[in-house]
C-alpha cells in the first residue's frame, strides 16, 4: 500500500503569534514529507506546536495574531502557503480533510447534522441537496452511527461526544480527501469510545486509502497505527523515523524519555512512570540553542550555542541532536 511518491512536502514552516505579552514562536522551521496512503504520527507534549503546524498548512489559524513567516507546503504541485483564499478553499474539506480535538465544540450548535454534513459536498462536489443527503446518510452509516436516516435531522446536542466525533470524521471524509489531518481526535473522549474511533479510522483508511497525519500525545496509540512517527518539541521536529525503528532505537534523549514513560511492552506498567523533569520551553524567543537542553541529561557545550538541525542517519532515521553515541 505504501508508495514512495510524496503527496505533501512541507519545507521549513515558521509560524509565530504576536500577542500582548510579546511574540510566541510556536513553530520554528518544520519540514516533513507525507507519502501517498501513509499514516504519519505526530507526537509531542502540550504546546509543542502540533496543532499550529497543521493549521498553518490550511491557514486555519486566526490571523492576526498568527503569522506564517516562511515556509512551503507543496501539495499536488502547488504551494498551499502561496495560494489565495479562493484556491485554498478548494483544498480545505475537498482534498484535505480536518478533524479537531474537541468534538463538543467543533459542530455548530444551531444547524442540523444534515446541513453541516452536506456543506462540503455542496461546496466541492457541486451536489444537489437530495444527492448530498443520500450520501450524507451513507457517510453516517460508514462511521457507525445507527439509524442514520432518522438521526440526520438532529442537532449536535442530541449526540454524545463520541457520536459527534464520528460526525466530524464523516464531514472530513465527505469529499474523499487525499489527506486526512486528525488533530488529537480522541483526546477528549473516554477510553472505550477512543478505541472505537481508532477502529473506525483504521478501517476507513483501508477502504479509502487516503494519507493521514495523526496528531497525539500518546505514543502508545501511534505505535499501533502509524507507518512513520515524528516527535515534536518546542516547535521543532526533533526526531523522525519509521515506527518500528523509532520505538526500538530512539536516538533523541527526549524521545527516549517519552518511551520510558510508556507502559512496558509486555503490557506491565513500569513500577513508577518515569516522567521527564523540567518545564516545557519558553517560546518567547526565537530558539538559538537546543530548546530541550535545559531538561536533557546529555547536554553538551554545543547544545547551548547552536540549535541542531534535523539530519538523516541510517535506516531512514532523522534526528536533531548534537549527541551521537555511535
Amino acid at each position: 500500500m505504501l508508495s514512495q511518491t510524496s503527496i505533501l512536502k512541507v519545507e521549513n514552516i515558521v509560524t509565530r503569534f504576536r500577542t500582548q505579552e510579546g511574540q510566541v514562536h510556536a513553530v520554528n522551521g518544520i519540514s516533513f514529507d507525507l507519502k501517498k496512503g501513509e499514516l504519519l504520527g505526530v507526537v509531542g507534549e502540550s504546546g509543542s506546536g502540533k496543532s499550529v503546524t497543521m493549521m498553518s498548512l490550511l491557514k486555519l489559524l486566526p490571523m492576526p495574531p498568527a503569522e506564517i513567516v516562511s515556509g512551503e507546503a507543496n501539495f499536488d504541485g502547488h504551494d498551499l502557503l502561496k495560494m489565495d483564499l479562493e484556491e485554498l478553499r478548494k483544498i480545505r474539506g475537498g482534498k484535505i480533510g480536518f478533524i479537531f480535538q474537541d468534538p463538543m465544540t467543533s459542530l455548530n450548535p444551531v444547524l442540523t447534522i444534515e446541513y453541516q454534513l452536506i456543506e462540503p459536498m455542496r461546496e466541492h462536489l457541486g451536489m444537489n441537496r437530495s444527492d448530498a443527503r443520500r450520501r450524507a446518510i451513507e457517510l453516517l452509516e460508514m462511521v457507525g452511527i445507527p439509524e442514520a436516516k432518522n438521526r440526520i435531522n438532529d442537532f449536535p446536542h442530541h449526540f454524545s461526544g463520541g457520536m459527534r466525533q464520528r460526525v466530524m470524521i464523516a464531514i472530513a471524509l465527505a469529499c474523499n480527501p487525499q489527506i486526512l489531518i486528525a488533530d488529537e481526535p480522541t483526546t477528549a473522549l473516554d477510553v472505550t469510545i477512543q478505541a472505537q474511533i481508532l477502529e473506525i479510522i483504521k478501517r476507513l483508511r483501508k477502504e479509502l486509502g487516503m494519507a493521514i497525519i495523526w496528531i497525539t500525545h500518546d505514543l502508545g496509540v501511534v505505535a499501533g497505527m502509524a507507518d512513520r512517527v515524528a516527535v515534536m518539541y518546542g516547535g521543532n521536529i526533533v526526531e523522525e523515523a519509521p515506527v518500528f525503528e523509532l520505538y526500538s532505537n530512539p536516538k533523541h534523549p527526549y524521545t527516549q524519555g517519552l518511551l520510558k514513560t510508556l507502559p512496558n511492552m509486555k503490557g506491565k506498567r513500569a513500577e513508577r512512570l518515569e516522567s521527564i523533569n523540567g518545564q516545557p520551553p519558553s517560546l518567547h524567543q526565537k530558539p538559538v540553542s537546543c530548546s530541550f537542553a535545559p531538561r536533557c541529561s546529555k547536554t553538551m557545550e554545543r547544545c547551548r550555542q547552536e540549535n541542531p538541525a534535523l539530519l538523516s542517519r541510517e535506516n531512514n532515521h532523522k534526528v536533531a541532536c548534537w549527541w551521537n553515541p555511535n
Partner: protein
Amino acid sequence: MRRLLLAIPTLLVISFIIFAILDLAPNDPTGNLPMTVPPEVREKIRVSLGLDQPMHVRFGMWLIQFFVNEPLNILHEAFGISIGDATERTRILSWATRSPVIDLIIQRTPQTLWVVGLSYLFGILIAIPIGIVSAYKQYSWFDQVGTFISMVGFSVPTFFTGMVAIIIFSVQLKWFPMIYDTTLSVDSWQNFVTQVKQMIMPVSVLALYNASQLSRFMRASILDNLNLDYVRTARAKGRSERVVLLIHVLRNSLIPVVTLIALGIPTIFSGAIITEQIFRVNGLGQLLIIAIEGADIPLVQTLTFLFAILIVLFNLIADVVYGILDPRIRYD
C-alpha cells in the same frame, strides 16, 4: 402554556400594586380647583368620582371595567359584535377630561407607533449590519468610527441630541418644522411630504439612540462567536467567508440580539416620553406626563398597567422566540 397561565396572576398582582401605590399617594382630584369652590361641592365631586367607596370596592370596579367592559366596547366598536348593552356599562373615566381613558389612549397610539415604532425599526435595520461589519473588521477604521459614534449616541441623552437637531435643522436651516403637527391628516401628496418631514427629526434622533446600543450588542455577540471552534470547522470545510459569517456565525449571534429586540418592544409604547416632549409629538408618553401632572389617577393607572401587560407579554414572546432560534432549548 404553563408560563402563560402564570402570567395572569402576575398581572393581577401588578395591577393591584399599581392601584395601591397610586391610592396611597396624597392625591386629591379637587386639589387643582380654584380656592373659591366650597367644601360641599368638593365633597360632591369626590362622591361623583366614586372616591367615597372603600379601596377594595374601587379596585374591583376598575378590574371589571378594565377586563370586561372595555374589551366588550372595543369588540363592539371595531367589529360590530355586541354582547350585552353597551350603554349600561360603566367605563374608566379620566378625572381631568371626563372622557373614557381608553378613547384617549386609542387617540394617542398612532403618533407614538409611527414615530417611536419607526425609529425602533430603523434602529434595528441600521444596527445589525453595522454590528456585523464592525465585529468582522474589528479595529478597522470602520469599527473605530462606529465605536465612537455609538458611544456618543448612547451616552448623550436624546433631549440633548433632539435640541441640537432642532436648533440646526429647524431654526438655522429651516429644513424641518419645529413642532410636530398631530392634526395633519395624510390625504394628499403634499401632506404626505409634510408628514415625512416632521417625522424625520424625532425618528432619526431616536433611531440613532437605539442603533448605537443595539449595534454594540450585535458586535459583541458576533465577536463572542467568531473565535469558537465551529467557525474553524466551517472554514475547514472550504466554506467562503460570507457563508461562515452570515450563516454559521450570524445564526448563533442573532439569538441574544433578537431576544433583546423583543424585550425592547414595550418601550416603543412607553419609552419615548422625553423625545415626545421635545418634538411636541403628543403620543402616549406625553399623555402619561400630562396625566401624572394632573393627578389623573385612572389614566395613570390604566396606562401604567397597559405597559405592564406589554412587558409581560413580550417577555413571553422573547422566550418563545429564543426557543425557536436555539434548538438546544425546548419547552414542554
